[in-house]
């Protein structure tokens, strides 16, 4: 539409500003936003296009940022009191790339504090509501990103996914949520939670939009030592290809006890669609993942978090207490005042499992089981191109329903967490609605750096259905 000049970037930006103003009071997806700055960038985009110098399909498109991804000169709070006044001194690599493509950074989006949570209720600045049902959670931790796109406040947003934090909110909000292979997208400028699991990805309305965003943000970056040099294919072009009859594996353990019947039925219908499209469907087994992934995850993720969050000591940046004078008390008291309950819980657990006498029994053992879990996935991939499952065992739950029971909240991540442990790509896309009108997510898990095929398979489903054209009544 922008290329055809049927609408200007400025008109588009004004429309999203107006929509945001209209619905944000009910949704609360943003932590902050700079309307004047965004409109200025839109005008600059229009000037480029008028001069014949448009930078590609994203030039003039507003993109939201989860409030853990740095945009120079803008706040970065991680939804924590600890960083309530922090201003990013530089751009994340994904930000640099999106700006170079002409995209307009539009807003800082709410999350569970430091990305720790599955509901966005653990935000120091208040919970975000699910646009499909304002009494329910949008999922998390990228809940602000998901709610903002679902509510029509922006066409796409970046999130981060450590155990399902993009795919689960995408499922709860009826969106496409893409978590790339570990190492495909640079983590430079992402506030670290669990560095061996964190990966930046996208929340969009369609698979095609996800492909376009991934095209821009993917690629090697020397400032992230875990970023991999790999050839980046043309993801959008790949969507149009049908390489071969796909071999789709269905992990039988992901359809067991605890799976809501409506969600199971919707995923079975998606399987029937692929079967009729010529795919070969095989039942596969991931017994170690199903039984142990959550335990492994909560040991490794909390251990890494306790180490990563040690930097918040009240000295160089972030909150500093006024009620202590010696160094150790300043650290301990600043952290006590700056961090919320879930963050404290994970720091304590992570410190415990790394401490002398417990390291081998917990952390090292978890890392070994992680090796077995990755091996289990790689064995299954010898006979399958992708795996297909529900994204979540239930649809969006009520605000407050699980916030008092951390273990119940953790168990909600059962289908997504193995993907992070194994470093695989995963995508969630809408595959129906419950009788109560809540979106249902279908998860497709790809092979390492198999984004092109995974996106193509997702796109094929999307082309045969109309779930992605539905909007919530707000």
């Amino acid at each position, binding site marked *: 539409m922008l290329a055809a000049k049927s609408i200007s970037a400025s008109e588009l930006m004004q429309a999203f500003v107006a929509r945001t103003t209209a619905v944000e009071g009910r949704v609360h997806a943003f932590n902050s936003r700079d309307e004047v700055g965004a409109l200025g960038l839109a005008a600059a985009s229009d000037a480029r296009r008028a001069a014949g110098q448009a930078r590609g399909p994203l030039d003039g498109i507003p993109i939201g940022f989860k409030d853990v991804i740095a945009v120079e000169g803008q706040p970065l709070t991680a939804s924590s009191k600890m960083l309530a*006044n922090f*201003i990013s*001194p530089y751009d994340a690599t994904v930000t640099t790339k999106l700006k170079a493509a002409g995209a307009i950074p539009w807003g800082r989006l709410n999350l569970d504090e430091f990305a720790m949570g599955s509901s966005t209720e653990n935000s120091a600045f208040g919970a975000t509501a699910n646009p499909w049902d304002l009494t329910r959670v949008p999922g998390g931790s990228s809940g602000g990103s998901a709610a903002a796109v679902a509510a029509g406040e922006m066409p796409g947003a970046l999130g981060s996914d450590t155990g399902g934090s993009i795919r689960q909110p995408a499922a709860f909000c009826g969106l496409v949520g893409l978590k790339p*292979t570990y*190492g495909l997208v640079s983590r430079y400028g992402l506030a670290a939670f669990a*560095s*061996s*699991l964190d990966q930046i990805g996208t929340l969009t309305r369609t698979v095609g939009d996800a492909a376009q965003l991934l095209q821009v943000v993917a690629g090697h970056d*020397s400032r992230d*030592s*875990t970023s*991999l040099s790999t050839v980046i294919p043309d993801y959008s072009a790949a969507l149009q290809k049908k390489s071969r009859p796909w071999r789709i594996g269905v992990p039988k353990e992901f359809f067991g006890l605890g799976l809501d019947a409506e969600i199971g039925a919707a995923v079975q219908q998606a399987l029937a669609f692929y079967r009729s499209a010529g795919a070969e469907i095989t039942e596969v087994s991931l017994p*170690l993942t199903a039984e*142990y992934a*959550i*335990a*492994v995850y*909560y*040991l490794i993720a909390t251990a890494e978090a*306790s180490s990563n969050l*040690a930097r918040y*000591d*009240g*000295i*160089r*940046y972030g*909150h500093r207490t006024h009620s202590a*004078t010696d*160094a*150790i008390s300043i650290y*301990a*008291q600043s*952290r*006590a005042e700056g*961090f919320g*309950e879930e963050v*404290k*819980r994970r*720091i*304590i*657990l992570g410190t*415990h499992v790394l*401490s002398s*006498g*417990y390291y081998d029994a*917990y952390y090292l*053992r*978890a*890392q*070994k*089981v*992680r*090796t077995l879990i*990755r091996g289990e996935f790689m064995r299954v991939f010898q006979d399958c191109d992708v795996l297909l499952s529900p994204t979540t065992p239930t649809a969006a739950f009520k605000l407050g329903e699980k916030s008092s029971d951390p273990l119940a909240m*953790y168990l909600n991540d059962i289908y997504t967490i193995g993907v*992070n*442990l*194994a*470093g*695989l790509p995963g995508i969630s896309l809408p595959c129906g609605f419950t009788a109560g009108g809540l979106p249902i997510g279908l998860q497709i898990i790809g092979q390492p750096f198999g984004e092109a095929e995974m996106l193509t398979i997702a796109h094929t489903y999307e082309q045969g259905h109309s779930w992605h054209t539905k909007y919530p009544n707000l």
Partner: protein
Amino acid sequence: MNSSAEINIEYVARLARLALTATEQAKLSQQLGDILHYVDKLKQVEVAGIEPMAHGSPVFNVWAADVVVAGLSVEEALRNAPEQRADSIVVPKVVE
């Protein structure tokens, strides 16, 4: 694996440089006890001879060229400091 009952919240909080109230300590003891009880199931897995996996991508020993690159200016680096004076971050006295 050590029993989950052995978590000493006061000791761990001191290691983590995190001041906790008595109420927080009591709540965390109970919740972390539940979580540690849950993760105890990893004891069932045979891991003899298995290498630990540190992260999800097969890269090791990444080196960078030893060249000077531009960084933040002093002003930019100090912009988020809670207390500063004369191009420095103000810290409490640590040497008597």
